[in-house]
């Protein structure tokens, strides 16, 4: 068995770093063009100018012009974690400026990958609840409906957060969350705790809106990444449809 040369081992390490950086970014919900850009930047800064990467929302392909075989990683789960995107971005900057080598960066990336999310689920639930109340006011609702929206938004977001972990069917969590919000809102208006059903529902549904997907879809299309842009757009559209369907179930019985 022939020992791999130090040269090819070095190339392998650089490729590992590129793949890991790309993987973390894509899983955290970065735009695909940014993922490709980061990967090629790291490769160029590490002395591999001929590297190519092709990224879709579900897979990363990466190849160098050398004798090494191309790599492929399948991405199954995507969340939204802007903090990790910013961290990886920072590391790629430091590699480009020569502050870090690819091997050092790899250990740092491993730490980022295993790192916890920036906020605990509780903080997110409270943030979603407050945002729901605020949206009701922004959409010309009365202050009377503030508290009902906060409560409906809290339970709606909590439903989505936990169903995502338990049920592996996509869009089901959003549908149930919207259903939960509609149910709570109609109970509130029925017992005269809230005044306007519409305003409460609109406000509390907002935290479920796939905002990042929509913006990313647009930015990917702008960058000429048609496949990613369209598939993200379809994802956003289906999520919006699931939310609409969840509320519609309640409205049919009103």
């Amino acid at each position, binding site marked *: 068995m022939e020992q791999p040369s130090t040269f090819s081992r070095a190339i392998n390490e650089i490729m590992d770093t590129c793949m890991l950086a790309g993987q973390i970014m894509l899983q955290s919900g970065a735009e695909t063009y940014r993922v490709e850009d980061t990967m090629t930047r790291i490769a160029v800064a590490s002395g591999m100018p001929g590297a190519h990467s092709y990224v879709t929302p579900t897979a990363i392909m990466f190849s160098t012009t050398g004798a090494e075989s191309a790599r492929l990683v399948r991405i199954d789960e995507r969340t939204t974690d802007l903090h990790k995107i910013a961290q990886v971005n920072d590391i790629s900057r430091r590699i480009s400026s020569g502050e870090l080598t690819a091997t050092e960066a790899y250990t740092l990336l491993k730490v980022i990958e295993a790192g916890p999310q920036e906020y605990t689920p509780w903080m997110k639930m409270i943030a979603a609840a407050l945002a729901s109340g605020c949206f009701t006011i922004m959409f010309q609702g009365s202050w009377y409906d503030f508290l009902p929206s906060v409560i409906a938004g809290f339970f709606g977001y909590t439903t989505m957060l936990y169903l995502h972990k338990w049920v592996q069917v996509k869009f089901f969590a959003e549908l149930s969350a919207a259903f939960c919000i509609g149910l709570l809102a109609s109970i509130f208006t029925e017992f005269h705790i809230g005044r306007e059903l519409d305003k409460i529902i609109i406000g509390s549904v907002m935290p479920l*809106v796939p905002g990042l997907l929509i*913006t990313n879809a647009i930015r990917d299309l702008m960058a000429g990444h048609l496949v990613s842009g369209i598939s993200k757009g379809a994802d956003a559209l289906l999520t919006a449809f699931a939310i*609409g369907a969840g509320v*519609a179930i309640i409205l049919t019985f009103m």
Partner: protein
Amino acid sequence: MLAQLITSFIASVGFGIIFNAPRRSLLQCGIAGMLGWMVYVLLYTHIDPIAATLIATFIVGGISQIFARIYKTPIIIFSVAGVIPLVPGGLAYNSMRNFVENDYAAATALAAQAAMLSGSIALGLVLSEVFNQMIRRAAR
């Protein structure tokens, strides 16, 4: 008006938290959202809501570019939270409500309007990106 400013700030920061934005950029997320919403609220009584949304998103995009430059972070951190208040949630809801009530004429009209507004959000972001690139090229 003050209530609108405060609520839009809190809503944008809330979205920053939901999307796991870095802690030190939450304030900027709130400012981007607040300014965008303020522009929209000031304009939409005078001009078409579609044009108002376009201008508001353009401004959110511009602010996000500046923040991204200053804090050396990816632009989406700021633009996502800033654009959220402008998403036509109310229209989409009313459109769906009409669909459920079998009033398809009203429903499609509202849906078309919601689609137009979403399109203008997209266009606003694109325009601010183009504008930014033009400035960068001119500065070089």
